[in-house]
């Protein structure tokens, strides 16, 4: 018997018991919807957490904060050379922070910002991008963060007068001139032996502005200076990293050059994981988002498997309905099955027809369930932030997805549904093949 004819048989039989089949399909659809929606929460949260991690950090980057083989120390030039010599390392970018937050002035506007000393060539190699201008070529050229201008305010205005009653900065006090090409004056302070504060101005030129951070909530007010400029500042303060007061022996300028942070970049996620493991084994404090992602993925994959398992229970409950429907169908059609067997229907064909019928019900339920799950997911993603905001007066992070339904989840859910329905239809199908021809024709079943 051809598959097309078997399918036609199944459809004819389904038409005879529309209401019963409808209820069975409904149960199957509800089970599938529950499975997909439940697991979609796991997928949604996983995606949101990953996105959050990746927005905060670069995926192909390892951060190194120091070395500790029993005695802690910062990273030095020797370490930098070692990192550069490692296989699969694309760039090594050391970073130092100025140990004071100097007053920065452009014309009649001022601010206090974090000052970071970087190797611009290494930064460029690592993928630092500018939204405007160019990379510094001279020691007194600098780059400012994307939001640097937002923090500037007029020198003759008290800080508390800058804002309106809603806490917004008044427009008339915002800096709206061009930053590129502007001379920025850094007022570097130091303490003399009598603890009096002295100050000297260092003039630099802004030549570039960094690109906008990936996440909308991230702000970059940093001032990026070259290592040479940091050295000039250190020469003036006579301390390492421009510390205004020589607090301990670590800030002694005669000490070797060390770095607050060093970032290593590689081309692939696998190399990042391997390098992180290697450096950790060599007693460096190394951290990479790749290892974090690996752990996050493992955690969420376990959670998703758990949710799919719970969802599968709903499908299993629905399968009881399919089993019941198919058993009733076999009982009701026993005389017909007997006649078919008498005129030459192979038991295999009878079994195939009933398995096809249970699969058809399962597939129909799975498809309807999938469509409903997409609808629920859409409504949840749209409505839940509004409800949370209204009830808890709390802002949901932008791009937050409570529920995500990837194709893989659909394939898993439909697969589970089909397998479960085929299993639940298998016993009634076997029962159909065992029907006694003579008893069936006598209506004695």
């Amino acid at each position, binding site marked *: *018997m*051809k598959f097309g*004819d078997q399918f036609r048989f199944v459809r*004819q039989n389904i038409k*005879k018991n529309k209401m019963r089949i409808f209820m069975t399909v409904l149960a199957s659809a509800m089970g599938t919807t529950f499975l997909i929606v439940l697991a979609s929460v796991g997928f949604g949260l996983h995606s949101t957490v990953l996105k959050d991690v990746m927005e905060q950090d670069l995926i192909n980057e390892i951060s190194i904060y120091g070395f500790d083989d029993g005695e802690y120390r910062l990273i030095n030039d020797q370490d930098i050379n070692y990192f550069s010599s490692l296989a699969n390392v694309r760039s090594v970018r050391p970073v130092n922070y100025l140990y004071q937050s100097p007053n920065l002035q452009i014309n009649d506007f001022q601010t206090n910002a974090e000052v970071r000393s970087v190797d611009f060539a290494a930064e460029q190699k690592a993928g630092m991008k500018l939204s405007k201008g160019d990379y510094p070529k001279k020691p007194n050229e600098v780059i400012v963060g994307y939001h640097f201008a937002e923090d500037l305010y007029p020198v003759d205005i008290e800080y508390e007068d800058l804002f309106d009653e809603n806490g917004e900065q008044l427009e008339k006090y915002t800096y709206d001139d061009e930053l590129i090409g502007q001379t920025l004056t850094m007022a570097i302070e130091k303490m003399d032996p009598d603890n009096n504060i002295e100050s000297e101005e260092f003039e630099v030129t802004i030549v570039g502005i960094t690109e906008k951070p990936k996440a909308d909530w991230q702000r970059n007010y940093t001032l990026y200076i070259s290592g040479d400029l940091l050295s000039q500042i250190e020469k003036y303060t006579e301390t390492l990293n421009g510390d205004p007061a020589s607090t301990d022996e670590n800030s002694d300028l005669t000490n070797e050059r060390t770095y607050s942070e060093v970032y290593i970049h590689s081309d692939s996620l696998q190399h990042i994981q391997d390098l992180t493991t290697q450096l950790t084994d060599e007693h460096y404090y190394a951290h990479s988002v790749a290892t974090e992602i690996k752990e996050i993925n493992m955690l969420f994959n376990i959670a998703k498997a758990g949710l799919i398992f719970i969802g599968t229970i709903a499908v299993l409950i629905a399968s009881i309905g399919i089993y019941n429907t198919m058993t009733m169908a076999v009982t009701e059609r026993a005389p*017909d099955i007997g*006649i*078919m*067997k*008498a*005129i*030459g*229907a*192979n*038991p*295999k*064909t009878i079994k195939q027809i009933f398995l096809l019928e249970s699969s058809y019900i399962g597939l129909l339920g799975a498809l309807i369930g999938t469509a409903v799950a997409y609808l629920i997911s859409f409504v949840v993603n749209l409505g839940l932030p509004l409800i949370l905001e209204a009830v808890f007066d709390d802002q949901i992070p932008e791009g937050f997805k409570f529920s995500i339904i990837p194709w893989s989840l659909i394939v898993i859910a439909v697969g589970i549904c089909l397998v479960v329905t085929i299993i639940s239809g298998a016993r009634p199908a076997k029962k159909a093949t065992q029907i006694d*021809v*003579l008893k069936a*024709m006598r209506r004695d079943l």
Partner: protein
Amino acid sequence: MITVKHLTHEFELGKKGDKTLLPVLHDVSFSVDAGEIVSIIGRSGSGKSTLLNLIGGFIRPKSGQIFIKDQEVSSFSEGQFADFRLNHVGFIFQNFQLIPSMTAYQNVELPLILKGIKELERKRITEETLKRVSLEKFHDHYPSELSGGQQQRVSIARALVLNPPLILADEPTGSLDSETETDLLEFIQQLNKELNITFLIITHDERVAKIGNRIIEIQDGHLIEGGNH
């Protein structure tokens, strides 16, 4: 066409642990040649229907052998026998055994579907067969909308549709009035002559049995030698 050798059968009665055996057939042997009409006659409970069910493969003999077209069908598996029935044996039952939810056309078409014949070819064969039994105007009638004689004709059409060399008929006129019975018997003889189909007819009615070239009588499960009619 059919050879039955030393066929013995008994039914098990009662529940597990308290079973009794009811002998039905005792060492039955006979043969039917191709193109013959053979009637098996006997009283109710004589074992004639059991004999037909054994030949048709609906039950398995306790001992003995059954050959149809030189194949030992008594050793076939259920699936093998089903395929054999589909390809070589047609059935006519006393109660017609039509599927009530199918039209006359669909009932006749069913063996063709089971054999996997393409739809266009099926249509042609089904229509031709319905025409042969003079039911071309009743394609879309359900069994409940047909008279007993018409239902039996649909049943014959279903048995004929795959051109089997052998038709087993179990009390084919049992549910018909005498006029319809006469028509049906004439039709069976016509089919036998025109298509050379072998008929094995089980009946308790001597009038029906007389259309056979040979009558075999069964009494209490024993075969009484049948002669040529």
